[in-house]
């Protein structure tokens, strides 16, 4: 096999090798696996799974209660700088005097400044497009009014999510979702952790040390 001179070998060359191989008739893929889970109380399962991963779950009845929870939390951690996604239901919450809540939509023009803000922030507040009950996961995506860094850089990540967005598991979520994929979707299943030193659990390595999911009806 002659090797081309340019560093970029490109599609064709590798496939020369592949087509030299004898391919028997391709085997058929099996029919898609369907979810085998039936949770009588998906929210309870979600709570159980996320708490097992050292996340925190609060379930309240109204959006107002949820936003109060957020305010209390921010008070509790003594947050001075807070970053938040610009999407309903998050547009409404605010903190007392002296606290700054910076929102994505007001910083679109200056991504550099936004990044610095996220790096300095004490907490980040987002919603989630779905909740996965089986694995205790929040589905957080990039998009207009949303920043990847809000749920990544600050030491505390607070997610405010309507409980109706709960899905059974990966399979039901994937089957239900439609439309173009965003540039980035993350399934967040707990605060950041590692066991890399002496197999001992340590929470809060690169990502948030604390994850609080607030579900409201």
């Amino acid at each position, binding site marked *: 096999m002659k090797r081309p001179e340019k560093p970029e070998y490109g599609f064709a060359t590798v496939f020369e090798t592949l087509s030299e191989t004898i391919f028997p008739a*391709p085997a058929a893929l099996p029919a898609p696996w369907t979810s085998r889970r039936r949770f009588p109380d998906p929210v309870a399962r979600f709570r159980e799974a996320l708490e097992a991963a050292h996340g925190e779950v609060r379930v309240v009845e109204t959006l107002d209660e949820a936003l109060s929870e957020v305010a209390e939390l921010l008070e509790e951690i003594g947050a001075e700088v807070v970053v938040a996604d610009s999407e309903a239901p998050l547009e409404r919450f605010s903190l007392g005097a002296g606290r700054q809540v910076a929102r994505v939509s007001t910083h679109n023009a200056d991504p550099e400044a936004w990044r610095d803000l996220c790096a300095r922030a004490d907490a980040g507040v987002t919603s989630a497009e779905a909740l996965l009950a089986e694995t205790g996961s929040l589905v957080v995506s990039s998009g207009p009014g949303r920043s990847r860094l809000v749920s990544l850089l600050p030491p505390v990540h607070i997610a405010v999510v309507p409980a109706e967005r709960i899905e059974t598991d990966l399979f039901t979520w994937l089957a239900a979702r439609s439309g173009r994929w965003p540039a980035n979707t993350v399934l967040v299943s707990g605060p950041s952790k590692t066991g890399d030193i002496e197999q001992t659990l340590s929470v809060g390595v690169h990502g948030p040390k604390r994850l609080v999911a607030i579900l409201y009806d």
Partner: protein
Amino acid sequence: MNGDFNSGFREAARIAIEDVGLIRSVETATGRFRLGREAALAELPEADAMRDHFKQIRAATLSNLKNHLQTFEANARTAGVQVHFALDAEAACAIILDLARKRGATLAAKSKSMTTEEIHLNPALEAGGIRPVETDLGEWIVQLAGEAPAHIIAPAINKTKEQVADLFREESGDEILAEIPALTAQARRRLRETFLQAGIGISGGNMAVAETGSVVLVTNEGNGRMVTSLPPVHVAVLGIEKIVPTWAEAGVWLSLLARSATGQPLSIYTSIITGPKQDADIDGPEEVHVVFLDNGRSKLLGTKYEEVLQCIRCGACLNVCPVYRSAGGHAYRGETGPPSPYSGPIGAVVTPLLFGLADHKQLPQASSLCGACLDVCPVRIDLPRMLVDLRRDSVEAGLDGAGTAVVTRLAARAFGSERMLGLAARLARFGRRFVGGDLPRPAKRSFREIRREKRS
């Protein structure tokens, strides 16, 4: 037979066995992962059926690999991803170096990737004037130590917190307590700077989804998200076999991956990357590249070894292997040179297949064929069968020591007749001390002799 192997695996294993601290660490870590896996699969409905289903997915995918790669390329391009194919390690490094240079990057933030170990990317970057910094905590630790990773999932499995503190002190000049919270905080602080300043982010990928041209990357620490979101360029490096046709299959893969590796239902962060930042996004990389690596994989397609490409690099086989647990990961190496990035049962098979049997002839011998690996593999890869096949290839290639081959064939001859068997046993009883003390000592009277006497 006894004197066949005096370097490579046997020698490295011999040294590792003496390192009581290392072996204790390996036992603790693998024990935790084993228990985690058992509990996680016990809780997963129809786990066995799902594994069978997964095997069908992987086998079918490989039987049609070219088409899936083509589909991925088309869909990825639509999403704004640039797809590259690298025939070998040199090609891959050249592509990545080129991408970094085009952007004037001098610092590369790296998220854990066995594939980039395989292609020796870090030395290539350094030679090209680019500083690579590993950001997975375990990988950063072994990078600072100048060592190879010791386990597919837990690279620093062999390091104590005192050793880590020493490495961190040396790296930063700071005074650091040899306690895990302090060490973790130090890593968070130091590596945060890397994430924010790097001109290029380089990651591996757990799978590529052809349906949408997406790459899936899982981490527990969040460094995968950092590396793929902060720098202006993101490059993901994946073996050509890490592909899945649609999201239906990806769901099965994700359901089994973390459960088999550590017992978690999912890793903390499952990142799904489909292209660079879109117009309305405030953050995200401006360029996303996927480099598919061949490096010997395609020549396994259509052979009796194709099955080894089904591996999803979960590490479950390492965690149960009694050989791995006794000798550690660094023992898996060639006759000369550094350890293979792939250790344990999968390493013993894939290393000689990708990098040459002659140079790695001990690896297929580094197994008692107990079958524990096959028991736990989520894709039911028949590693014991492939180990025997590799041994057969070794014999046919004349890689068994000449003395061993002669003795083995003579023994087979002797076993060919009951009379010769008796004769050989008598000879062995006499000449045992000359051949090697490890051979079994024949009984004074064989069973057949006792039986004959009883009859008469």
